[in-house]
């Protein structure tokens, strides 16, 4: 193991979907509806929520895998960004990881030509975060160079088949032995049913509220992030979110 981390004490949470007092795990449509409501009713911008989401991810990573725990000579992290908003979350996460003292490297093969993503890419580049021209050919190369991989490929909107180059990327990631931290949904998983033979991340950072796929998560660390859901929206969807500690932007669920 390239990243030996201190074990964390789990917080007690009620069992998932256990009734009105239990933390709710959302279906795909519900997750999309909540997202839409945050933008259309509550007037949050994508930028705002993406920034808070990415910051949550970096913060959760810093708690579970502090720089001192890396066995690589530098706390090197590979951040793999997909073609949509999950990829955007990854770019924000990479930037904050750099601020926190990590050495992130980004792989971002499919970039939307929208100002939001172009801006996030520039922000990373101006922080001297390298962007790989090619994905490492072998899982062993990733294990050698990095102590952690951040999976920011697909999020809660993912449906259907995985298009290249992400199929090959996921095959390689499935053979990696360093820990993988997935943003919101382990990429390639069905958002509700999971994927038994798919990616097995060590950490999952659920954003806003966990999705049903998280019920199939068997990694060590499950964090909740995206501390921006207004009380009225939490009530409307009976999210039953546990209390975040103090002013932290993340909550450790397991």
């Amino acid at each position, binding site marked *: 193991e390239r990243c030996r981390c201190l074990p964390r004490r789990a917080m007690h949470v009620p069992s998932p979907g256990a009734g009105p007092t239990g933390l709710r795990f959302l279906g795909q449509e519900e997750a999309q509806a909540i997202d839409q409501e945050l933008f259309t009713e509550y007037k949050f911008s994508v930028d705002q929520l993406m920034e808070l989401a990415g910051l949550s991810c970096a913060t959760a990573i*810093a708690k579970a895998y502090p720089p001192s725990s890396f066995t690589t000579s530098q706390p090197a992290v590979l951040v793999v960004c997909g073609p949509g908003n999950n990829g955007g979350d990854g770019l924000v996460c990479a930037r904050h990881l750099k601020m926190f003292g990590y050495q992130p490297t980004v792989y971002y093969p499919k970039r939307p030509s929208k100002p939001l993503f172009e801006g996030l890419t520039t922000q990373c580049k101006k922080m001297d975060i390298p962007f790989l021209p090619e994905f490492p050919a072998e899982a062993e190369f990733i294990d050698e160079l990095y102590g952690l991989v951040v999976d920011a490929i697909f999020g809660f909107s993912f449906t259907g088949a995985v298009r290249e180059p992400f199929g090959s990327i996921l095959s390689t990631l499935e053979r990696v032995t360093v820990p993988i931290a997935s943003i919101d949904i382990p990429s390639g998983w069905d958002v509700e049913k999971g994927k038994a033979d798919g990616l097995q991340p060590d950490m999952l950072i659920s954003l806003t509220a966990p999705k049903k796929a998280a019920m199939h998560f068997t990694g060590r660390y499950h964090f909740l992030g995206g501390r921006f859901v207004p009380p009225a929206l939490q009530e409307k969807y009976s999210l039953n979110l546990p209390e975040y500690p103090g*002013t932290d932007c993340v909550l450790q669920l397991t």
Partner: protein
Amino acid sequence: SPSLSPQAFPLRSLRRRQPTLLVACGPAQNGAVGLVCARHLRSFDYEPTIFYPKRSPDPLHRDFTTQCEKMDIPFLSYLPTEVQLIDDAYNAVVDAVLGAEGTQGTEGTEPCAAILATLRHVRIPIVSLDVPSGWLAGPVGGSGDISPDVLVSLAAPKEVARRFRGRRHFLAGRFVPEELRRKFGLSPPEYPGSDCVVAL
């Protein structure tokens, strides 16, 4: 901004039973930061009330206002000139009126002048965002300056912060890239771990 009040005024330390805070927001950038701050304070279980008499037409700032309204944060329609009413209702005031924009002497425009006239007399602590509103550039302050208890410098402390004599000085806004810090000769801030606030 989000973490400033809880570190200086943890919920359990507040004198009033309800964790009430007054957030006074000016018409420009500093006021917008105040709006965002109020929203995060609400999610931290404080009870902020906003006074935002002159609203910025900037669409982003208008959205910040909507976000606050949808979090059930009340907006005062007027600020009591009777200072006792403010001292009785709130535990502290967040000063997001002028900030750095005020150091060039813009405090004279209404309604900021009136807000500051009232803030000069409150007895509850004031938390100023970036620069105590109304403080002018220069080595010596004016006798009418507000005296905040807490100052939260954003990105880097401003010149006028040298005159700050309050209880706590924080640095927040952990987003300045290293290249920019070096270019302006800013000393590296020592944020602990993944915190976005550091006590100076």
